[in-house]
Structure formats: structure tokens, C-alpha cells
């Protein structure tokens, strides 16, 4: 890799760049947008376009099965607010976020740091093993839930029984669901994030680490005071994405609530995303689904805004 040292001449060249002309700035803008153009097009087509359409149909009346645009006023929003499941789903997702986001990030970072203390074949193998569950979806997850959480047939039976959980129905209860989804989610999602954070740790320059060693730091101090701050942007990235993903929790509660396979005490609609799906596909009320989605978006956006502003995530570091 190229040697990256700063020379004195570069400093003066920096000055030259800072006083560039108006025309150069416009050229840069044009160039920037040529880089962004395909992305903007796709974002409009598959991100914002549908989002704006969702906004429009949130004011459409779907009672006859087809949309009558702008005829519903705020009726759809009222439908959402008056639905008895709204408070329930929001409370659920709130509880879920509260435990899953901090725990998820903390454990991922912890494992990445622990692995990185001794980088090498063993760390590499462990990282692969942590990652494999992430590929288990759909039928595999259903099977695993049935068989890992039924003490009589589970490899973890001994552990479950010693915790006093002697049956499947004792483990999956309405009050334990947030925790169960955390376990399921971490099982499949953690490996990828551990790999990303480990990759970030690998990127820390050896000179920095050597300097720390020479200063007398042991591995634990290095992890806490050097590595951790250096991977901050990746941790923030993880926070935002895990938050965004968990707010939209859908697959796990849908799998567990589907009484065809898993006869568990799980309500059909547990998360807000499921409620939106229910409005859309059980009742045919796409307008209410869109209204709820926009409400969720507003909340998620609010939280992300706070995070981004607080951490200066979007500033270019120069």
C-alpha cells in the first residue's frame, strides 16, 4: 500500500485548493452529481417514489377495495390511532428496542474486541463460526425455534430445566417475547456485525498499536482506550442500522405468530410493522397501512436525527 506521509509541499497545495474559483466549484458540483445520478434515480424509483406514493395513499379511501385518492381526509390516520393494537405494538417495539439495541451493540463490540486481542487463525475461525447462523432463514429458523426451545428435545435442555423452564409454553410467553426475539435476532445478525467491526479493528494502523504497546498498555487498555474510540464511526453506523432494522421487526414475530407451524402463545400482531401489514393484507386497507408506516418513519427519523446531530455523523472529517 502507498506510503501516506504528509510533506510540506502538500500543505501549500492545500492553500491553493482553498482559493479555487467559482467555476471550479460548479464543476465539482456537476461531477459530484454525475457520481450520484444513478443512485438518485434508483433512490427515487425504489426508495422515495414508493414512499411518496405511500404518503399519497395514506389519504386515499380503500373501503371499496380500490383507492379513491384524497377522499379519506385523515380517516386512515384515525383508523390507526383508534386501533386497539396500536398501543400494544408500540409498547412491544419500544421494549424490544430498549433491550436489543444496547445489548446487540455492546455484545458485538465486545466479541470483536476479544477476538482481535489475538488476531490469527483461531480468531478467523471463530469469526466464521459466529457468522454462519446469519444464513439460517425461514424454515431453518422455524425448526430451530421449535427444537431449541422445547426443553425435552433441545441440546440446551439441561440449561433450560435448571432455569425452571420445563416446557415450550413456559419459555414463549407474551412477556418473554421481546427477549426471545432478541435471542433469535442476535443469533442471526450478530455474526455479520462482528465481522464488520473486526474488519474495522483490522484497519487500525500497526504504528498506532505499536506506539501503545511501547507506552506500556496491555491488551485490555488498548481495547478500551485505543481501539474502541477508533472504530467509533462504525459503531455509530451499526447503531443507526440496527435501530432502523429493529424498528421494522417483522420476520421473527410473524414466524412465531404463524400458528400453522409453531403453536405458541404469540399474538398474530406483535410489532408495528406487522400491524401495517395486517392493515394492508388482512383488511385491504392500504391507506391505513401507509399512514402507520409514515408514523413509524417519523418516530424512527426523530431518533436518528438526534443520534446523527449528537455524533456529527454526517460531517466530513478533514
Amino acid at each position: 500500500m502507498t506510503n501516506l506521509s504528509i510533506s510540506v509541499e502538500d500543505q501549500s497545495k492545500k492553500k491553493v485548493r482553498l482559493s479555487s474559483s467559482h467555476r471550479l466549484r460548479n464543476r465539482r458540483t456537476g461531477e459530484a452529481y454525475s457520481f450520484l445520478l444513478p443512485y438518485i434515480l434508483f433512490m427515487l424509483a425504489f426508495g422515495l417514489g414508493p414512499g411518496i406514493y405511500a404518503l399519497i395513499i395514506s389519504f386515499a379511501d380503500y373501503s371499496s377495495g380500490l383507492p379513491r385518492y384524497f377522499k379519506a381526509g385523515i380517516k386512515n390516520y384515525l383508523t390507526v390511532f383508534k386501533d386497539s393494537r396500536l398501543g400494544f405494538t408500540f409498547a412491544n417495539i419500544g421494549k424490544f428496542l430498549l433491550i436489543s439495541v444496547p445489548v446487540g451493540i455492546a455484545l458485538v463490540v465486545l466479541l470483536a474486541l476479544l477476538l482481535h486481542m489475538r488476531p490469527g487463525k483461531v480468531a478467523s475461525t471463530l469469526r466464521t463460526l459466529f457468522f454462519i447462523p446469519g444464513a439460517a432463514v425461514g424454515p431453518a429458523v422455524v425448526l430451530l425455534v421449535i427444537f431449541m426451545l422445547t426443553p425435552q428435545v433441545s441440546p440446551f435442555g439441561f440449561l433450560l430445566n435448571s432455569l425452571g423452564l420445563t416446557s415450550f409454553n413456559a419459555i414463549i410467553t407474551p412477556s418473554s417475547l421481546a427477549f426471545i426475539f432478541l435471542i433469535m435476532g442476535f443469533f442471526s445478525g450478530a455474526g455479520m456485525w462482528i465481522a464488520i467491526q473486526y474488519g474495522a479493528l483490522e484497519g487500525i494502523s500497526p504504528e498506532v498499536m505499536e506506539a501503545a504497546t511501547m507506552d506500556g498498555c496491555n491488551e485490555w487498555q488498548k481495547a478500551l482506550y485505543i481501539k474502541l474510540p477508533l472504530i467509533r464511526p462504525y459503531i455509530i453506523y451499526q447503531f443507526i442500522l440496527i435501530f432502523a432494522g429493529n424498528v421494522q421487526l417483522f420476520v421473527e414475530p410473524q414466524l412465531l405468530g404463524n400458528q400453522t407451524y409453531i403453536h405458541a402463545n404469540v399474538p398474530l400482531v406483535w410489532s408495528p410493522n406487522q400491524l401495517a401489514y395486517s392493515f394492508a393484507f388482512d383488511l385491504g386497507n392500504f391507506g391505513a397501512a401507509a399512514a402507520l408506516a409514515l408514523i413509524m418513519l417519523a418516530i424512527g427519523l426523530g431518533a436518528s436525527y438526534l443520534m446523527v446531530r449528537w455524533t456529527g455523523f454526517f460531517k466530513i472529517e478533514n
Partner: protein
Amino acid sequence: MVTRWFNKNVRDIGILGSILRWAVLLIFLIYFVIPILWLIIAPSKDTPQFSSLPSLAFGSFAQYITAWKNVFSYQNGEVFLWFRNSFFYVLYSLLGSLAIGLPAGYALAIMRFPGRSLMLWLTLITMLLPTSALVLPLFMELNLVHLVNTPWAVILPACFFPFGVYLTYIYYTSSLPSELVDAARVDGASEFDVFLYIALPLAQPLLGLLAFISFNANWNNYFGPYVLLNDDKLFTLPVGIQTVLGSTSALQPGFNPTPGAIHFGYAEAAVAGLIMIVPVVIIFLLSQRYVVSGAFTGSVKG
């Protein structure tokens, strides 16, 4: 020799620290690995054996082979077709999302231009929009251009990969030295030159990371393909397998069976799960080369 072992394993961590470290790693190893081990063993059991044998005991090889045969003989090996579909959709999505996302992430990271902040916010917004609300608009949009029930209905939306753009953004903000870029700019290089000759070659580790994240997300994606594809010949693996499970008695042994139907039980469901897992593992191992040691080296200085 003891000194060597000490230096390798205990130095800078301490004996207690070492034990603690290994304890934590071992606990999580068990948590991640045991269920997968169970899944690998599962096809060897027939349905009663799932309750009668100890959980991690192996059943029989004959049953293992029968289970695999049953899955692959479904609808004359339709599983192969789904596998092939999944592979190509994911490949094209990856290429598309890289072609679109790399320049975009780079521009957002390195260039100053009006609207930069807005773009980052819009990217975030699109990631926060719940999928359930986007389904209908997406469906109608694609129907407008007659792409529903075609592979493009799956590939094109997947090319929009905000997650990847963000990762590119972070990667370039934290590991592309501005001095390098500035020097090139001052030398008269256009932004495009800088991207092509400096940023892209440095992006090898990023490419590896993006490749397996994109692969993982698209390989397992169920919702999009399910809504946008009706013809079972076009299905991806997750949708096809879900259809099999939903249309046979796989996960609810005994429910509404018919004569002549291929037996689908827990063992076959486990095989279906394994079919999904194996390629991801292979891709992960392949992209390890780019993501591991030496990959990001030297880039993060803080």
C-alpha cells in the same frame, strides 16, 4: 517453551484475563454453533427420532440420503432451478448495487457539494420506511413497466442498496486520506480520475465486505420476491422453499396429507435450511481474503 506459550497466549492479557476471554468466547461459540450443528445432524433422523433420540445424536445415513433425495425430487428438482435463480438474481443485484453505490458513497464521503447532507438524510429515510407500506407502491410501479413476475422485479429494487452506500461513505471518510485526494486534485485530476485511479484500487477490502453483505441480504430476502413473483419457475430459494413448506405437510407432520405426495417432514425442512446456508458460508469464506488481515490495514488513523 513455557516462555513461548506465555508470550503467545498470556502476555499483555494476563492469566485471569485470558481465562475470562476464553470463557466469554466459548459461551458465545456454544450459542452460535450448537443450533447449526443440530441442523446439520437433523436430516439423519426420521420424525419419531426427533423426540426419541438425544438431541445431538446422529440417526442414520440412509435417512440422511432419503431426506436430501426428497427435497431434490420435489417437482422434478425444482430446487435446482430456484438455486440457479437465486444465484443469478443475487449476482446481478450485487453488480448493480456496486456500480451504483460505490461512486455515490465515494462522492458523499469526499466531495463537498450542495445537497450532500440532504442525500445522506434521504438515504437514511429510505432505510427507515417500513417495508410493509412500500410493497403496494413498488408492486404498482413495477406493474406499470410490465416487470412484475420477471427477474427484474427482484434485481432492480435490490440495486438500490443504501446500507452499502453508507458503508462506502464510512469507509472512505475514515480511510481515504484527504491529502492524497487533494494532491491529485491540485495536480489537475478530475474527480472521476481520482475515483478510478486512487479510491477504487484502495477499495478492495470494502468490496469484499460489500459483496458478502449484499449477498447475504439478497440471498435471504423473502418479502420482495414473494410479492413480485407469481410463477414458481421464477422463485428464489427462500420463496420456493417457503412455498414447499406451506404447501406440504413439512412443518406440521400429518396435517392434510395426500397419497403420492413426497414425504416432507422435519428432516426435509432441515435440508431446505442447509441448502440456504451452505452457499452463504462459501461466499463468506471466499470474501474473507479481502475482509481479513491486511485488508483495512493502515487506513484507520483517527
